[in-house]
């Protein structure tokens, strides 16, 4: 860390914020990863199947109903 790169002066009572450019890469990558995770709980097998058959659907079936996703 370069000594010259001093952090911008923040007013003592300014609320702490995280810069958007530091969040965006994580949001883009993990946001999509999380949506894929949700897809397997909420939609896989019913509407569009990435894996053939109903195995994934039946495995998470009770969770799908109880978590509010449409099923049968």
């Amino acid at each position, binding site marked *: 860390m370069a000594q010259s790169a001093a952090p911008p002066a923040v007013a003592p009572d300014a609320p702490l914020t995280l810069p958007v450019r530091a969040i965006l890469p994580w949001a883009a990558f993990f946001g999509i990863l999380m949506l894929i995770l949700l897809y397997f709980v909420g939609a896989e097998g019913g*509407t569009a199947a990435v894996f053939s058959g109903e195995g994934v659907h039946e495995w998470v079936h*009770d969770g799908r109903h*109880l978590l509010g996703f449409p099923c*049968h």
Partner: protein
Amino acid sequence: MNSATVRTLLVRGMLTGIATGVLVFGFAYLVGESPLRSALVFEAAHETEHGPELVSRTLQETAGLATGVLFFTTAFAGIAALAFCFALGRIGRFGPRATAGLVALGGFVTVFLVPFLKYPASPPAVSSPDTLNQRTALYWLMIALSVLIGIAAVVLGQRLAPRLGNWNATITASVAFVVAVGLALAFLPAVNEMPEGFPANVVWDFRVAAAGMQLLLWASFGLIFGHLAERVLEPRTANAPTQQAVPPQAAPAPH
């Protein structure tokens, strides 16, 4: 440094999601499985054909349910942790714990409560398989709409705050949210497929269980993640005032 902070918060958010998932699974197993089993009894008595069972009921109720719940809680806790990073210091003068609580409240309302009002969770054998594609699309659309309206309301509140003050800006943004959500609820197509003779108490118990799971998820996320996030952010928030408030100890007072 800031990117590392976001990563730390994201990791803690997902760990919170796993911990929450254990709680939600326990609740779902104890409270949700009972009406679900009753629905399957109704289904068995009324169905004409039955496909081969790929996963045994015992596995579906235990490991299967746990998988579904943990995927769900971890995914939403991760997304909520990212939302927390955006919200911190931008939605008002709230510290990490209050911000986590507000993000959790927003998640509960937009991701669950609003879609639930239009397309409530239903036990097996209630809905027709023929309309599954349409119902799935509508449900995800409802979640997306509700989250977008929620974000728009927060931005509106931010914009109005300098002019109206925090209190009135918050009320105006909340009313705008309720009106916009109400319009979405009114204009999206309804789904009414309840079969003849389906026990109403089973549907009620099932929906109470489903709502309880979400309440447990978002409440425990807000509390646990708020605590963890404060410990990550505490050095900065706690040091700033301390460095100014505490005078240097170098010169002890003469006796």
